[in-house]
């Protein structure tokens, strides 16, 4: 069987395929000179002939040519592909048959096309790739065109659209063709149609195509501006006067202004015996004195004359500054401008949507961090400065579990309840040992829990070190959900959002629908009365505190997945968390949600005004909160009546 195969292969490769008029080598031999020493101008003929031959080996040859793997064998004067070159013996492959042979290396001359030629070859290759059987290659060809668009690519691209079978790639081809037509189309009508079809597209290449059509160059004139005028600049308004004058100087239309630095240099160059133009150097300590001295030098003709402001004004007055489109046809630029405007609207709409998603995910992070606090502070009225450290504890629990259980999904499933247990136990211990004794001294609770907070922080530092520990998300949580080029959200953020929603529901259920919730509310409102109804306030306080702290622990795992685990991570959230609860309204889970939403949206929108400066965003947000509390001291969702006093 094997033998038959080898035989068949041998026959196939040895015998020229019948029925073909000529083979590749024949064409190459026709253009030996151009192939061997191609120039950018001459190579076009070869490529045209090769394309016209419509042979499947042509793209293979072009690829080799582009990669500088074609050699000329001096022994028979034919071109081969170089396969391997070692110890003076080179393996070469026949271009038509694919048969490999070994020759002495000195007999071979490498064909080395220069950069310009290789670009021509690449352009020719693209048209083969556009109808390549492998979809990946067709896509690569499209990417190549998109990277370096060119008028010549319109024809092959248009030709390849019809035969395209893959729906997605076909759509991409049409889109790219449209962009190319918008920029390089033959007729004004074709271009305008193409441009108008771009409206509503928010892809960067569509925007780039439009702005390419709208490139301008600055002009200076004395009368009315001519050409396809984009904009007229008024000095001092659209451009600064200095800039406008600078353009005049660059064009040679006005003398260069004499800057203070130039005055200084000119004066220094003209110091004679400790004086400049008769004035002692020591007096040159004001701008006016220096100017006087300079003008005296100018009168003597040693330096160019000073350009006074009036002269600059006159020069600016007598010239018109404007920008013209590089594109001459005003119809095209008008269409492009209108389309660009609609594209910009689309873009800003999408950016707003993206911002809203960001704000939502930030809000859910704040909500997660604050919801435990909403229970301990909001419902019980206990200020727990160590709340942030419970978040940290949960995150470190997740980290430790991940060290023991290497499977990320499994470790996450273990870590979530374990973090609840660890942080909850710590919370109960703290309630029993410290807070219980301080229920009626809120300020002292604040300080005592702060003591615990710094102790826990340092303890974590001693155990885990100061460097950040990673908490790796499982694979199904990595990556992001992409809506389009501008709107995307990572899966971790979605997970945090879902988690926040879950906790909201769970907490509302516990507080409103369960026995525990009823007793918690009873104890919060009137401890004495609740006790006389047979509720054990101590036990309820303990349980409530445990619940709040445990949720903080779970929040820690979630936050650790998206940020890193450090001993200070809790401290970063504590002030924000308190503000979330206070802004939202104490004693109300919905209030915390509203507070987190407000703060999240606010922070993101301030950030979007100045994206490089997140510090400023935080500053202004805190200022806003301080002012907000002035007007609604009880928060967004304020309790009324007796409950408000509890």
């Amino acid at each position, binding site marked *: 069987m094997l033998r038959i195969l080898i035989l068949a292969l041998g026959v196939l490769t040895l015998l020229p395929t019948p029925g073909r008029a000529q083979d590749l080598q024949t064409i190459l031999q026709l253009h030996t000179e151009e192939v061997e020493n191609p120039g950018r101008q001459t190579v076009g003929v070869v490529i045209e002939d090769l394309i016209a031959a419509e042979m499947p080996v042509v793209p293979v040859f072009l690829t080799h040519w582009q990669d500088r793997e074609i050699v000329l064998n001096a022994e028979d004067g034919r071109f081969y592909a170089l396969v391997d070159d070692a110890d003076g013996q080179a393996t070469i492959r026949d271009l038509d048959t694919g048969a490999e042979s070994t020759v002495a290396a000195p007999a071979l001359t490498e064909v080395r096309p220069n950069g310009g030629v290789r670009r021509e070859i690449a352009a020719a290759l693209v048209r083969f790739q556009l109808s390549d059987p492998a979809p990946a290659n067709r896509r690569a060809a499209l990417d190549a065109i998109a990277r370096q668009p060119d008028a010549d690519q319109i024809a092959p691209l248009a030709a390849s659209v019809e035969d395209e079978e893959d729906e997605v790639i076909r759509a991409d081809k049409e889109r790219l063709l449209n962009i190319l037509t918008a920029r390089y189309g033959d007729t004004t009508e074709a271009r305008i149609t193409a441009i108008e079809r771009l409206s509503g597209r928010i892809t960067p290449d569509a925007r780039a195509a439009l702005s390419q059509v709208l490139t301008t160059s600055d002009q200076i004139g004395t009368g009315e501006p001519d050409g396809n005028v984009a904009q007229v600049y008024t000095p001092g308004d659209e451009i600064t006067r200095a800039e406008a004058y600078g353009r005049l100087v660059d064009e040679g239309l006005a003398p260069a202004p004499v800057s*203070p630095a130039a005055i*200084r240099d000119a*004066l*220094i160059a003209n*110091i004679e015996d400790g004086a400049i133009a008769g004035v002692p*150097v*020591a*007096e*040159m*300590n*004001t*701008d006016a004195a*220096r100017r006087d001295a300079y003008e005296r030098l100018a009168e003597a003709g040693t330096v160019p004359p000073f350009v006074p402001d009036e002269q600059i004004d006159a020069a600016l007055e007598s010239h018109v500054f404007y920008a013209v489109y590089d594109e001459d046809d005003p119809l095209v630029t008008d269409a492009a401008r209108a389309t660009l405007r609609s594209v910009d609207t689309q873009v800003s709409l999408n950016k707003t949507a993206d911002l809203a998603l960001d704000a939502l995910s930030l809000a859910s992070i704040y909500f997660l961090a604050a919801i435990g606090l909403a229970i301990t502070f909001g419902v019980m009225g206990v*200020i727990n400065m160590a709340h942030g450290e419970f978040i940290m504890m949960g995150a470190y629990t997740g980290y430790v579990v991940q060290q023991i259980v290497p499977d990320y999904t499994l470790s996450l499933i273990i870590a979530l309840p374990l973090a609840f247990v660890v942080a909850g136990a710590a919370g109960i211990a703290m309630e029993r040992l*410290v807070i219980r*004794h*301080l*229920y*009626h*001294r809120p*300020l*002292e609770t*604040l*300080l*005592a829990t*702060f*003591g*615990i*907070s*710094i*102790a*826990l*922080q*340092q*303890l974590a530092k*001693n155990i885990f070190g100061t460097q950040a520990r990673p908490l790796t998300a499982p694979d199904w949580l990595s990556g992001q959900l992409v809506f389009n080029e501008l709107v995307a959200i990572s899966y971790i953020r979605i997970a945090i959002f879902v988690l926040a929603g879950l906790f909201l529901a769970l907490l509302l259920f516990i507080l409103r629908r369960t026995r525990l919730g009823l007793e918690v509310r009873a104890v919060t409102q*009137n*401890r*004495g009365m609740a*006790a006389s109804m047979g509720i054990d*306030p101590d036990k309820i306080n303990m349980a409530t505190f445990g619940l709040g702290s445990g949720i903080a622990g779970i929040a820690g795992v979630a936050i650790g997945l998206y940020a890193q685990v450090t001993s200070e991570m809790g*401290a970063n959230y504590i*002030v924000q968390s*308190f*503000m979330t609860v*206070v802004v939202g309204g104490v004693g109300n889970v919905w209030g915390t949600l509203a507070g987190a939403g407000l703060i999240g949206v606010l922070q993101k929108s301030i950030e979007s005004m100045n994206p490089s*400066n997140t*510090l*400023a965003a*935080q*500053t202004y947000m*805190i*200022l806003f*909160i*301080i*002012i907000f*509390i*002035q*007007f609604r*001291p009880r928060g967004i969702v304020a309790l009324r009546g007796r409950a408000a006093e509890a």
Partner: protein
Amino acid sequence: MTDATMTLPHRTPPVRQTSTFGFLAALAVFAVTVTVLAEQGAISTSFVKTLGKTLCLCLAAVAMDVVWGYTGILSLGHMAFFGLGGYAIGMWLMYARTEGLVVQSLASQPLPPTPGELRDAIGSQIFGVVGSSDFPLIWMFADSLFLQLMMVVLVPGMLALVFGWLAFRSRVTGVYLSILTQAMTLALALYLFQNDSGLRGNNGLSGLQNIPGFENTSQAALSLGFFWASAVALALGYLLFAWVVSGRMGSVLRAVRDDEARVRFLGYHVESFKLFAFVLTAVVTGIAGALYYPQAGIINPNEIAPIASIYLAVWVAIGGRGRLYGAVIGAAFVSLLSSWFTGGGAPAIALGGYSLQWTDWWLVLLGLSFVAVTLFAPKGIGGLVDLIADRRRPDRQGDYGPDKGAKRAEEGAE
């Protein structure tokens, strides 16, 4: 309601006056001792600086005690005023010193510099680190020592006035106020962390230990000078606050602390008293900061992070609230102990296989001892004085602590 503590006017027991005199005498003895020891070379210049800085912290703690221990406002933002005072004086120190250096370097130029050139050169020297060379508007007075000294008082005072007016007017009290003050200091710190805040971002102001005009004075002499200035400031501040908290004013402040609503019903304008205490303490804290940072040599936004203000409260609590000398004792004790532990002064303890390094464990100890103080000794170290005084004079009407005195505890659910 014939409760003695509520009806009797708060006595001004001799202990209080004795305590003021006693404190001032102790401070004088301490200052003289340090001077003599420093002259003899028994203590180093850096330790004199540490002591001087500690005195400034004590002054801030006394102010904190007045606002918290006497008026009942737990401000978690007083170190913001401390930092602002430091920044205000730091601006002049930095400007004047840089001006000196720039004038020196420009003197070798062929032309004498114009005022504009001078300013540009100073600007690029100071703001080069944040990639700028222009003077922000807030530096407009930086060339005048007098105006910057005014700023030391005015900036913390104005901030406290605006913030306090807003907060007290809308009746934000208790823990809400604490959180709000904490938010204030956080906002300020975050703002200053920006490079374009005009105060060199997180680089802060540096080289403040070089006092312009005293280039030829040794650091040893300078540090002694600042030590004395700090001691005098502490003495004056202590006297001022001892005067404020005694007499009727002090009684109203304590009454506000114990039951704000009742004082309001008695016809006092509670907000004004609170605002007075808040602004006055802010100004004194600012002055303390202005004395502290030339000794520290550098100030950056980290110094006004919320944690610093919490430490201030910690010192006062450990020293004992509601008595001025308690705040001094607390601040001196904890901050000196802290620098001893974190500076590696304390010997490591070997625990079998583990060597307990105090640099690592000091904060744990501090945190836990802080819990212990709040739980078991709410009167702090100053409470020890009561033990002695009570033994001598057992019938003394006890000075109820800020929370014990409040009726709220008894009226609560129990």
